[in-house]
């Protein structure tokens, strides 16, 4: 008896469904899709409100501020590109990010390839090692590099045995490279491994059976097939490197400042809000250009930025 209302409801619903389904299938589909969008936006309203007020609105003020602070005009852009120091920082950010990406790809490629040829057990262990950095505090890890690379650190003390008085690594671009590459390597390993694990190795067997030497088969078949993963890993690495802040600030000297460091200094240190805003604008512009390229590469190879990020964090 308790089921009665449910049954009536159900039959009423199904009649309605049949009626509307047979009547105007086209308009109904359109309507349900519209409803889908409305429901989606309604459900997401709390998330959107938080994101809108505490993320997108402040970011928007930066983009607008670049053109309007202290007065409307392009004076902030003139300042940015007119001062050699700023252009130097922009170049340095791009160049160090580039070299970090090169190091990460060179390390991630053999690492990922090795992951595909070992037993599942070893692979699980290596994955644990790749994922540990995702969990560990970046401040702690960078602090560890400060200890290791300082002149009175273990490497410095060891080098003194060979007569090297001062290691001179801390506060150099090399120190920044070492620290950044360590943080970013997992982001490159995951997309490359994801691509490599899908490569059909029977293609290599086929090539060899047709007389190709293993190295030849590797270069002309395996390498091209793994390139989409390499490309997406490299672009993701580059984009993330551009926005780095903690590592250059802790391991680099004042001459290793990144765009991010410059923004903080202008906004908080010098209260030059417009100057900070214009640097933020330039940083965002460069990031979006790289992301655009990433999206294009992703489309070409059937992946997307979200998949890449999803694959790397999950």
């Amino acid at each position, binding site marked *: 008896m308790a089921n009665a209302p449910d049954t009536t409801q159900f039959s009423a619903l199904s009649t309605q469904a049949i009626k509307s389904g047979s009547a105007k299938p086209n308009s109904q589909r359109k309507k349900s899709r519209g409803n889908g969008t409305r*429901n989606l936006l309604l459900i997401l309203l709390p998330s959107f409100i938080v994101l809108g007020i505490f993320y997108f609105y402040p970011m928007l003020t930066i983009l607008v501020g670049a053109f309007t602070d202290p007065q409307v005009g392009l004076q902030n852009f003139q300042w940015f590109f007119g001062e050699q120091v700023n252009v130097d920082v922009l170049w340095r950010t791009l160049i160090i990010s580039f070299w970090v990406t090169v190091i990460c790809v060179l390390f991630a490629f053999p690492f990922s390839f090795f992951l595909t040829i070992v037993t599942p057990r070893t692979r699980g262990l290596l994955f644990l090692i790749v994922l540990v*950095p995702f969990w560990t505090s970046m401040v*702690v890890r960078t602090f560890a590099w400060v*200890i290791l690379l300082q002149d009175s650190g273990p490497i410095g003390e060891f080098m003194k045995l060979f007569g090297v008085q001062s290691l001179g690594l801390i506060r150099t671009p090399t120190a920044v490279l070492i620290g950044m590459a360590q943080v970013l390597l997992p982001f490159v390993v995951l997309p490359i491994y994801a691509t490599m694990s899908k490569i059909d190795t029977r293609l290599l067997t086929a090539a060899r059976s047709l007389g190709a030497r293993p190295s030849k088969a590797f270069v002309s078949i395996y390498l091209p097939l793994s390139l989409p993963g390499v490309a997406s890993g490299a672009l993701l690495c580059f984009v993330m490197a551009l926005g780095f802040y903690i590592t250059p600030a*802790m391991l680099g000297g004042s001459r290793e400042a990144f765009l991010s460091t410059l923004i903080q200094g202008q906004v908080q240190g010098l209260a030059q809000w417009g100057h900070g805003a214009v640097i*933020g604008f330039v*940083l965002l512009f460069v990031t979006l250009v790289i992301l655009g390229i990433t999206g294009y590469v992703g489309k070409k190879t059937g992946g997307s930025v979200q998949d890449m990020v999803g694959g790397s964090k999950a």
Partner: protein
Amino acid sequence: MNSEVRPGTKVVLGIITAFIAVWLIAPMFIVFPLSFTDDASFQFPPRAWSTRWYESFFTNPQWTDALRNSAIIGTLVAIIAATLGTITALAINRSKSRLSGTVQAIMLTPLIIPPIIAGAGIYTFFLKTDLVGTIFGFVLVHVTLALPLVVIAVNASLSGYDRSLELAAASLGAGRLTTFVTVTVPLILPGILAGVVFAFVTSFDEVIVAQFMVSPALQTLPMMMYTSVTRTTDPTIAAAAALVLGAVLLAFGLYQFVVVPLTRRSRGRTSV
């Protein structure tokens, strides 16, 4: 693949991989021995041992307040971000709307765009609205940074999700809420838990945006550590770093030996 790789090549690759693996994880463990130094510097190896820097950490209200603030903020962020993120991931996953792809892209933005840009904007926004140094402001800003990670984690657990189980529940008379609580949530629980941990860790380690929100009255642990390293050589930070790393390793162990086995059981297949 095994048959294609010569043993010699495999050994060389193994050595390279081992080198990279050591470079990835070994350096951070140096904070443990350093935290027990007796020197008032980062000199390594230490000349003598002591626990004085742990004492210094736990008797200095600046450090303990920062630890407490970070714990409170991180917990609130984890709860709010996990709730919003789970709803978001489910909604995107189930919506037939053409906009769902765009919505997902918007939700993931904070993960890719350099956080300093929003941070600088938040600085003036918070000055105008008197939110500087408030837990409220801190939590909501950190929620925006943590949301993408929860969405990704829950999304991942939805990929192997069988919706016919919900239909089965509904056909047996369960209402929508009952179905959600007794069928949907338990199935995606591993993803939600991973999201909770990701969200907490994100907040607990955040410096870039935090430096625009802290006040003398409200400091967080990573901010204290960051300013300490850049301004002094006080080894109290080594004790703080050792405590954080110890907690993180504990959390990682819990995830690896509790959450991952749960995922495997609920999905009925093994994955890394």
